[in-house]
């Protein structure tokens, strides 16, 4: 049994009220002025005797009225077999549709199954993982029934992961329905790259499980997005490093995404170019810091640099460590500024760490092309079968989603008991009248 308002069960204590009233009323003898006490002999008080309840049936009925009312307020819900069967016979369905889908795809299952559908709602399936989470949340607030999510999608690899499926509550069924067949090959634009010769547009072609790309010349002025601040003697080495990075082709950043690298000798304090550091608040800068910090090549080469930044301020806010030198100090640290990402580094201009850091920064500040939409490989049918599951029967429904509880029966019982109480009271008119007459005399 479940209770909609379990706190109302505290009202059951009210059933003690009639008993207490009965006992308290009987305890006190009313003061009664009388001409003389000379003929009155002391007797025991009847109220002591009347602690034994005078009319237990009437008292029980009154207590039952209060108890039934308290239980009705608490909103009981009896999980009977028929109620469970009724819930199990109906289906609440969330259909997550990724892209164009036919009408048939929106009405999965046979005719009988369609008749059992109590509620159905369609969710836009882009991105698919988010849509599954929204569908699961909606199903959790739906009335008790068998609940399922139907995914209607081409099911390309990467659109759903095992983690997305595991996040769906176990009693919610999952069914997959491929809407269309993916093409064998697909070519998609994948942004621009910066080369030694200028800017090139990259085209990616996905064919089965193979990926190929082609860079096409475009008529655009190449803009190197990173300013390097260093000593005058380091300029040739810096230029060589930048040339080396461009020869390897890095992603081309938009003109509003800029960075400044300040090369600081290990023994010196904060240089002029890094003095305007502020905490990072711009999203692309934050993304860039995360991506630089994950660069394996940068971490590998940083361990070969003997000394990091000596100034302890680079190890605390607003600076964030990107890589650590051999002495444990930051080799490179990043912070924000008004218009660009600031990176301070103790790497020597001639060391290998400098071009690796520049490449990492250039790739990090550029947007990464999303090729998910161009995916042509579907998730294997075997995997989808493993992820599929039928909707489970209702075991313990969320009490706030139940359409109708059993309190109406208790209210009916209250009405019936009230009628019974009235009948019982009228059954004893002699006692009542006797008491009333005595009250009148005493009054």
């Amino acid at each position, binding site marked *: 049994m479940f209770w909609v308002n379990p706190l109302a069960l505290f009202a059951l204590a009210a059933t003690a009220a009639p008993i207490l009233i009965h006992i308290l009323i009987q305890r006190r003898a009313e003061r009664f002025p009388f001409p003389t006490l000379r*003929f009155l002999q002391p007797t025991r008080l009847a109220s002591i005797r009347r602690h034994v309840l005078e009319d237990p049936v009437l008292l029980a009925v009154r207590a039952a009225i209060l108890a039934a009312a308290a239980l009705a307020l608490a909103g009981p819900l009896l999980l009977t077999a028929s109620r469970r069967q009724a819930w199990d016979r109906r289906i609440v369905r969330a259909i997550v549709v990724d892209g164009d889908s036919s009408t048939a795809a929106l009405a999965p299952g046979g005719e009988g199954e369609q008749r059992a559908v109590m509620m159905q709602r369609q969710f836009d399936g882009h991105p698919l993982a988010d849509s599954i989470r929204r569908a699961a949340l909606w199903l959790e607030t739906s009335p008790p029934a068998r609940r399922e999510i139907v995914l209607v999608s081409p099911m390309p690899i990467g659109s759903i992961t095992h983690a997305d499926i595991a996040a769906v509550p176990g009693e919610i069924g999952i069914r997959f329905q491929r809407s269309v067949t993916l093409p064998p090959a697909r070519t998609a634009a994948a942004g621009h790259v910066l080369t030694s010769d200028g800017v090139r547009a990259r085209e990616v072609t996905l064919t089965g499980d193979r990926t190929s790309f082609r860079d096409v010349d475009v008529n655009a002025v190449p803009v190197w997005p990173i300013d390097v601040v260093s000593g005058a003697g380091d300029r040739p080495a810096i230029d060589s490093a930048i040339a080396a990075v461009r020869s390897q082709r890095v992603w081309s950043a938009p003109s509003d995404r800029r960075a400044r690298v300040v090369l600081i000798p290990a023994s010196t304090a904060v240089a002029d170019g890094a003095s305007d550091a502020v905490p990072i608040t711009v999203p692309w800068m934050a993304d860039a810091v995360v991506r630089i910090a994950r660069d394996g090549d940068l971490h590998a080469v940083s361990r070969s640099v003997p000394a990091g930044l000596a100034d302890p301020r680079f190890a605390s806010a607003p600076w964030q460590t990107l890589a650590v030198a051999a002495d444990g100090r930051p080799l490179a640290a990043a912070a924000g500024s008004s218009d660009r990402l600031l990176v301070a580094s103790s790497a020597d201009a001639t060391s290998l760490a400098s071009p690796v850091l520049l490449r990492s920064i250039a790739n990090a500040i550029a947007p990464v092309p999303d090729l998910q939409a161009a995916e042509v490989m579907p998730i294997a049918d075997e995997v989808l079968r493993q992820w599929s599951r039928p909707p489970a029967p209702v075991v313990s429904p969320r009490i706030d989603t139940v359409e109708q509880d059993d309190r109406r029966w208790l209210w009916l019982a209250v009405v019936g008991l009230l009628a019974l109480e009235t009948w019982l009271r009228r059954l004893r008119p002699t006692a009542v009248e006797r008491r009333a007459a*005595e009250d009148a005399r005493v009054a």
Partner: protein
Amino acid sequence: MTVSTACPPEVLAQISDLELVARIVVEGLVSGLHRSPFHGYSAEFSQYRHYRPGDDLKYVDWKLVARTDRVYTKQFRETTNMASAIVLDTSGSMGFPQAGPAPMTKFRYAAIAAAALAHLISGQGDAVGLLGGERYMAARAGRQHLRGILAALSSLTAGGTWSVADNIRRASERLSRRGLLLVLSDFYDDEERTHAELKRAARRGHEIVLFQILSREEIELPYGRDLEFADLETGRALAINASLARRSYTDAMASFLERWHSRAGAEGFHYSLNVTDTPPARALRQFLLARVTR
């Protein structure tokens, strides 16, 4: 002849004008009585005096005018052949029952009876006096005196302690000659002392009439639950169950009433038990009939 005009006690209890109440009671009382229950009225010639303007012409002695050519009027000295004193118990116990919009308390009942008796006695030309509470009015005749007695009765209330025995002695000593001593009380006071004073008054030649006034409730104790009985005179309280105490109470009450009845009979007192749920006229009528036939 039966009395059909006896006014119910609850109606009398709601009329505040005691003179009117007395008249109502007497009206129901005397109908059917063919002669006065008390001794008759008489007046003795005293002297002549010169007529003065305004004198009633019926008192002019016309024979004397014819003989002497002077106008004289006759003066009379009123005489009574009986003096009576009403002793009205004003102790707190007479204030029972207290509840209700206009309760017919024992005191109210006794006051009505006393007013009716005073009205009757005075109407016969006899002298009547009153002793109740702190008020004492010597026995006199006349309407003005009757009104004074009725006003005094209206002003009296029941409360506190009041010795019936002491006041019987006071009343009997102040009756200058043999008279009628009417005592209205519940006689809850000291029985022996009260009885002794009554006997002393009887020895002085007074005729003793006892009206014992009680309510039905204090005779039958009809209550059926726990009550804390509080003495109206002393304030002492006793919490008991009334239904359990009823048997012993009614036995004791019956013995008490029997004692008063037998003692009064033995001493030649006129005794009547008056319950407040019977019309005062009916109770007084029995007494008056007994006197008439004496």
